[in-house]
């Protein structure tokens, strides 16, 4: 029998080895991984090198510039900016990832169900519209007012507020993902390989998990990377309104907002948290981009 590809049979290749080989060729994604790993390492290992308590008020050294004991200067209460950026980064990254994950799961689930099951489409998408139409700020206010104390009592002040913020950001940011995923699923559902799977006798949930979700991966990945940025910024906004973490609890967003009033005196207080947010968002976006390409076998260089 003639075969058009003259090649010897290959040994079994692992999917993830293939993915990694393609990912490696995406320069932007590699730089993204480097920058992101750098940020994560700095945030978690930094405090061991620069062991200043971020909450220590050194009233002798307020609004100081760059010095050996305070590499990024101090704020108006004499707190060390570098230590605060490290401490804030841990919270911001954790909130960003956890909230992104929650909103991604919610959005993908709602989008897939609405796109795949025609009967659920109307109700679920109207539910999505309802969430989009809700005035978010009053909603957040109410949720936090209602549940803050309960959660604080149950999990302690920090874990409680962390869970609450992740939950609140998660359930208010899944709608875009749901809409995008639904559109994608609607298109994929009509493709012929779905009919083929059905004619084989593939069960519905397998059609969704094996055929539809992998093909809807690109928009999901894009939503995910944008979602992290969105979550970090929303958390900043919440902190600024006094609804987020307590005032003495640094996060990147909080540092940015607190520093904004002192931008003429100590620009470093705005510059560094801002830079950290931007670099995180940018590097995560590039990683997502590279991952999306690497997961698509058509773009994969074999």
């Amino acid at each position: 029998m003639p075969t058009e590809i003259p090649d010897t049979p290959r040994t079994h290749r692992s999917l993830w080895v293939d993915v990694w080989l393609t990912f490696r060729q995406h320069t932007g994604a590699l730089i993204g991984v480097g920058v992101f790993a750098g940020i994560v390492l700095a945030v978690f290992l930094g405090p061991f090198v620069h062991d200043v308590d971020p909450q220590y008020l050194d009233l002798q050294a307020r609004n100081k510039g760059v010095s050996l004991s305070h590499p990024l200067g101090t704020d108006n209460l004499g707190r060390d900016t570098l230590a605060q950026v490290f401490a804030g980064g841990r919270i911001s990254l954790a909130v960003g990832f956890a909230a992104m994950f929650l909103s991604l799961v919610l959005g993908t689930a709602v989008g897939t169900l609405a796109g795949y099951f025609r009967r659920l489409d109307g109700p679920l998408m109207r539910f999505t519209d309802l969430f989009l139409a809700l005035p978010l700020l009053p909603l957040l206010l109410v949720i936090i007012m209602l549940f803050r104390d309960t959660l604080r009592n149950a999990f302690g002040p920090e874990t409680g507020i962390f869970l609450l913020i992740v939950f609140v950001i998660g359930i208010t940011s899944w709608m875009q993902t749901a809409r995008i995923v639904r559109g994608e699923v609607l298109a994929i559902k009509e493709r012929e390989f779905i009919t083929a799977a059905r004619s084989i006798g593939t069960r519905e949930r397998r059609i969704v998990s094996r055929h539809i979700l992998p093909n809807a991966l690109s928009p999901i990945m894009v939503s995910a990377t944008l979602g992290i940025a969105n979550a970090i910024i929303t958390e900043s906004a919440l902190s600024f309104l006094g609804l987020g973490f307590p005032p003495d609890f640094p996060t990147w967003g909080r540092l940015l907002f607190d520093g904004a009033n002192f931008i003429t005196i100590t620009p470093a207080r705005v510059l560094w948290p801002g830079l950290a947010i931007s670099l995180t968002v940018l590097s995560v976006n590039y990683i997502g981009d590279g991952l999306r390409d690497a997961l698509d076998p058509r773009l994969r260089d074999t």
Partner: protein
Amino acid sequence: MPDNAPLLEVEGLAMHFPIMAGVFRRQVGTVRAVDGIDFNIREGETLGLVGESGCGKSTVARTILRLYEPTAGSVRFRGEDIARLDGEPLRRLRRRMQMVFQDPQASLNPRMTVGSIVGEPLLEHGIGEGQELVLRVEALLESVGLEPGFANRYPHEFSGGQRQRIGVARALALEPDLIICDEPIAALDVSIQAQVVNLLEELQQRLGLTYLFISHDLGMVRHIADRVAVMYLGKIVELAPSDTLYHEPLHPYTRALMSAAPVHDPELEARRERIILRGDVPSPADPPSGCPFHTRCPMAVPQCATRAPEWRELRPDHRVACHLAE
């Protein structure tokens, strides 16, 4: 020609699609894609189904496989009515009937390896697992003339003909009795068409398969099919053994269709008289009254417009739906 009991009996099968319009998505009409057809397929034979684009050939295929919910009629596979089955019994019956699709590119999931595409039916029906599954997939690939090592590759790495072989391997995986080939060669180069058709014939001989072969390539259908059904606007107008149909077609539409197909012999080809049909195919959303073909039929008489022709067996094993045929 095999002359056994029918493997598949189709009776009065109809598939109407609603047309929705307006703000409230009310039904404003129906597309009668398949409008009451009867035929059967005998064990081990190849039944060709021909007709022009849009006449409902593919809908017949998909309705038989219950990929659509038929509006009316019954499809009996070895006596069991597929149109009334549901859930697990239907899933089990799917093992016995498989389909090869027209566009080999679209019918293979681009994100799955060839091995997992061909192995999916086995996995879904719990037939093979682990190493056994790998071996079976390799054997299947070999049986359609592909290298077993291709299992690790993705569909986009293959040519059209090879992709169609992958589609055939997937259809064979469950060792079905009936394979419905929905224009399996229409998307392929002529040189590759012969390869795929030869493969299908070879597999039929080796495995005793029954085919429903849908095509608009009259020459190819004549080559592969034992009997041929001609469809026009959702109805079968003529059904006969292929030699009979090609030599003495009884329905005027079949005659026009046959006259449009080129003949291999240049002398015959020079004498070939074409019957040119006037006008377009009427819309299946608003089919003509009486005989669906009367609007374009060169022989139409007044009663054609008022009375639908009977589906009669004019000669042994030769059925036709025309008032004038005799």
